[in-house]
């Protein structure tokens, strides 16, 4: 459920490998695409999506820094899902 139903807010965190660090998963996917007829695709990176309901969304950045992402090797981005999602 989106919004503040039940006193919680649905949020998403996108976690991706930091730029400049070799991402073999992304590279493997990228290399596979031409054989499937998808030319012209570049800069493929594979990360993770974490969805959570929070009573206090203000604490999400701290939660990301401490657990969801390793800031040394990963960037994270907090996204509120579109209304009605």
């Amino acid at each position, binding site marked *: 459920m989106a919004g503040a139903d039940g006193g919680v807010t649905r949020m998403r965190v996108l976690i991706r490998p930091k730029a400049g*660090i*070799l991402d*073999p998963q992304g590279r493997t996917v990228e290399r596979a695409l031409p054989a499937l007829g998808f030319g012209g695709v570049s800069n493929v990176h594979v990360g993770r999506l974490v969805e959570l309901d929070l009573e206090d969304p203000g604490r999400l950045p701290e939660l990301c820094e401490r657990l*969801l992402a*390793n800031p040394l*090797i990963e960037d994270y981005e907090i996204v509120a899902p579109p209304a009605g999602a």
Partner: protein
Amino acid sequence: MKFGVVRFPGSCDEVDALLAARRVSPAELLWHGDRDLRGADAVIVPGGFSYGDHLRVGALARFSPVMEEVERFARAGGPVLGICNGFQVLCEAGLLPGALLPNTSLRFLCRQVEVQVTGRPTAWTAACAPGDRLSLPVKHTTGRWWAPDPVLDELEAAGRVVLRYAPEANPNGSARDVAGVASAGGNVIGLMPHPEHAVDALTGSQDGLCLFRSVLEHGALVAP
């Protein structure tokens, strides 16, 4: 001197680590849920798949109750050895620099490798001579140690890169062939190869014993 070997849910090398440690001194298992090192004078964080490797290798184990005690022990100068998953846990805990990423090949590797003892002597490598080549097995999917170049420059300058894969034999794509690194105090080290699987001629190599002997002979130099 007593070794304590941590067991997490999902650990799989803790018994080999226990038996390897017992070749040089008494050792017992420590449970992840206990806030108690049971009087251990040296702690081994073993290999395996702690907490199922969920989220990110080592990320959840790092917050287990026993790790609070291991961190306190390490920060007070106690000798701590992280092997494979244990290395990943110690990096996540901030006790060692860098992080472990998926092997460049994305494949699970299981093979014997040659590693060279480098850097300055530490609690866990002092009994090995610098330049010694050790034959040790590796078995991992997430063993590509990485740190930003400036950090790696500092580590090399301080002699804290303590094990390196032999030239052209780097199995996982780790930065500058790093196989193991030490804390600033030299009491904590982590490595991807498995010294605990190389303690008996029956399995091809006894080269791993020198790590366990090091802490017995030299660990007191940095003990808390």
